[in-house]
């Protein structure tokens, strides 16, 4: 362990601010090292949208003398490696193999590459089977109107929200990836409370979730992504069973401002079935704040069955994508500052989604047995 306590010696000569590391054998060696292989940046795909299968393909094929040269370089780099421990144990003991093995092990199942917002294409692929099972077997989702989603370019999906866990955003994502011809990735905006939940938050982030923040959403839309918002937010998730399918206030109309500013069309989405998947009979708030969540849901299965109670009930789901609404055509980007207009538009879209939900509910006969009853 290095000693990091610097003496309060104003005239002193001790290490002050980050100078060259004295442990490095040759601190000024940078320009002297053979930089041929470092010269141009080998692209490792740490940036946005590099499909996982492409990530490894940067390693160039090496000829025989190239390989010898490479070995020589490796040997030289090996000699100049910064010692990690005070005594370089790795050089004294044959630990190199162990160390390598450990690094490989530690990287197993890790996000090797993520895009700018933390989505890892491999993580999505890894959970694909679960989404597919939930989508086609468990919830038996019927998605309609997928052709309303553009094949490329930005669009803002606006959906209703329900359930104590965000299964609805996962199903919207999976519906577009599975059944839309362009197989586009939807980036759902996730409420703070879910995004900062231990374990669940990072998983949401790896499979594509982004913290609900106007700056994030604008950046995504300007990057021509497909963004899904749930303007009801926490209020939507906190709906009780008795209020099911009654849309809550649509935030402060932030999504309308976003659409106006970026010129993205709004695609209204109605999700039916999520309310029954985790019907919230009541919520406990008095202890919840202590563990950092807004409430503890009480469902027919939770907390009675423990963690297993968090599994959703197998309700029948319908997801309908409505015709795109192009706000940019009627109103310019400047109208994003017109609060009255923004609120009016937000309420119009809320009513439209409510109508879509009511229509779907009218079609459905039973929340759970729809498969048999039609």
């Amino acid at each position, binding site marked *: 362990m*290095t*000693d*990091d*306590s*610097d003496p*309060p010696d*104003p*005239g002193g*000569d001790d290490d*002050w*601010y*980050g*100078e*060259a*590391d004295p442990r*490095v054998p040759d601190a000024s060696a*940078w320009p002297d090292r053979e930089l041929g*292989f*470092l010269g141009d*940046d*080998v692209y*490792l*795909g*740490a*940036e946005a949208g590099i499909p996982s299968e492409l990530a*490894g393909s*940067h*390693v160039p094929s090496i000829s025989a003398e190239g390989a010898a040269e*490479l070995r020589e*370089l490796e040997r030289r*780099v090996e000699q*100049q*490696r*910064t010692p*990690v421990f005070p005594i370089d144990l790795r050089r004294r003991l044959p630990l190199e193999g162990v160390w*390598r093995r*450990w*690094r*490989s*092990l*530690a*990287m197993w199942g*890790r*996000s*090797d590459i*993520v895009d*700018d*917002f*933390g989505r890892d294409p*491999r993580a999505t692929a890894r959970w694909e089977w679960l989404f597919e099972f939930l989508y086609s077997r468990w919830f038996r989702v019927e998605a309609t109107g997928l052709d309303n989603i553009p094949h490329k370019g930005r669009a803002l999906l606006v959906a209703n929200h329900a359930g104590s866990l965000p299964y609805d955003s996962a199903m919207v994502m999976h519906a577009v990836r599975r059944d839309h011809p362009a197989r586009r990735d939807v980036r759902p905006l996730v409420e*703070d409370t879910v995004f*900062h939940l*231990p*374990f669940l938050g*990072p998983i949401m*982030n790896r499979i594509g979730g982004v913290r609900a*923040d106007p*700056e*994030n959403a604008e*950046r995504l839309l300007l990057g021509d992504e497909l963004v899904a918002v749930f303007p009801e937010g926490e209020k939507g998730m906190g709906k009780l069973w008795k209020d099911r399918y009654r849309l809550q206030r649509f935030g402060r109309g932030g999504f309308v401002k976003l659409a106006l500013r970026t010129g993205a069309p709004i695609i209204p989405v109605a999700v039916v079935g999520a309310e029954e998947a985790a019907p919230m009979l009541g919520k406990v708030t008095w202890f919840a704040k202590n563990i950092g969540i807004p409430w503890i849901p009480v469902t027919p299965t939770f907390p009675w069955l423990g963690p297993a109670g968090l599994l959703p009930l197998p309700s029948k789901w319908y997801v309908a994508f409505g015709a795109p609404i192009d706000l940019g055509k009627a109103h310019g980007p400047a109208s994003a500052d017109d609060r009255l207009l923004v609120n009016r538009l937000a309420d119009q879209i809320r009513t439209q989604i409510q109508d879509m939900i009511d229509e779907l509910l009218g079609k459905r006969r039973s929340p759970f047995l729809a498969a048999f009853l039609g």
Partner: protein
Amino acid sequence: MASSTTGRVVAVTGACTYLGGELLRRLEEDPRFVRVLALDIRPPALAPGGKTEFIKIDLTQPTIDGELATLLERHDIDTFVHGAFLSHPTHASEWAHELEDVGTMHVLNACAGVEPRRFIMISTTLVYGAHPKNPNFLTEDAELRGHRDSRFVNDKVRAERQVQRYAKEHPGVEVAVLRFAPILGPTVSNMYTRFFSRPVAPVMMGHDPLMQFVHEQDAAFALQQAVESRAVGAFNIVGKGVLPYTTVLALLGRVPLPMPQLVARQLTKILWTTQLVGSPPSFLDFLLYLCVADGARARRELGFSPRLSIKRTILDFLGIAPEDGATDVARAQA
């Protein structure tokens, strides 16, 4: 490029820091600069060439501003680079405060009396602080929230506020602030390199924020660009790409030690007060929440874009050739 016929004179405080030293070396090779003053409390490793002159300046001295002003006038300094900042937290917080906050005041006093043409301050993206409400990419317009109880960060925030006020009061001076993401590389030493040099690293259980670094050579290049350009304002100097914290640890081969928040905070507090670790408890917030900055403005106005990706930066910090690390990772994924 605006260089006078006689050539430019640059003064650099914190000449013994990594960035200061690199800047001296780069200016030494550039014929447009005729003279470089290295200001620090001890002589830097001077590059051969003879343009650079070391002058002992201790910014914690109470009347150093007058001395600096005479210096500015005598040498007709055209660009002042202020980089006398600590790169890692210290227990001598009083002294750190004198150096960073009050020292910046002295520097600005001198530069108010004798205005240089250009003033550059070296700062860090840590001044934004790691907060649960941070957007994924902090732009330069974001509020400098610092950290509730980190003196290491807050001294830098105060120094930066002073510089911002100075910029407003002296519109004739081109003021640029460079906010560097944590710098990693084979030779630099700072809080993050020390943190990542330990075999074991704490992980806040269930949290895995995205992290961002900048390679030391990229950082030095950005500073050189800032000296040469005429751009004003704040600039985030960041590397290419982001990676989750646990991936960084895995790439480095460090053992992650997951701890509940409460335990981690108490443990770090004890270890910090007993001076066993170099990172204060407030640093744990950077393992919990995002503090990632957007480098678009530096690319646009400063003409700086990083050369190395984050993974290359990490592997280079370890001193590993890219092929090794890449195949290692590929094998692990296979």
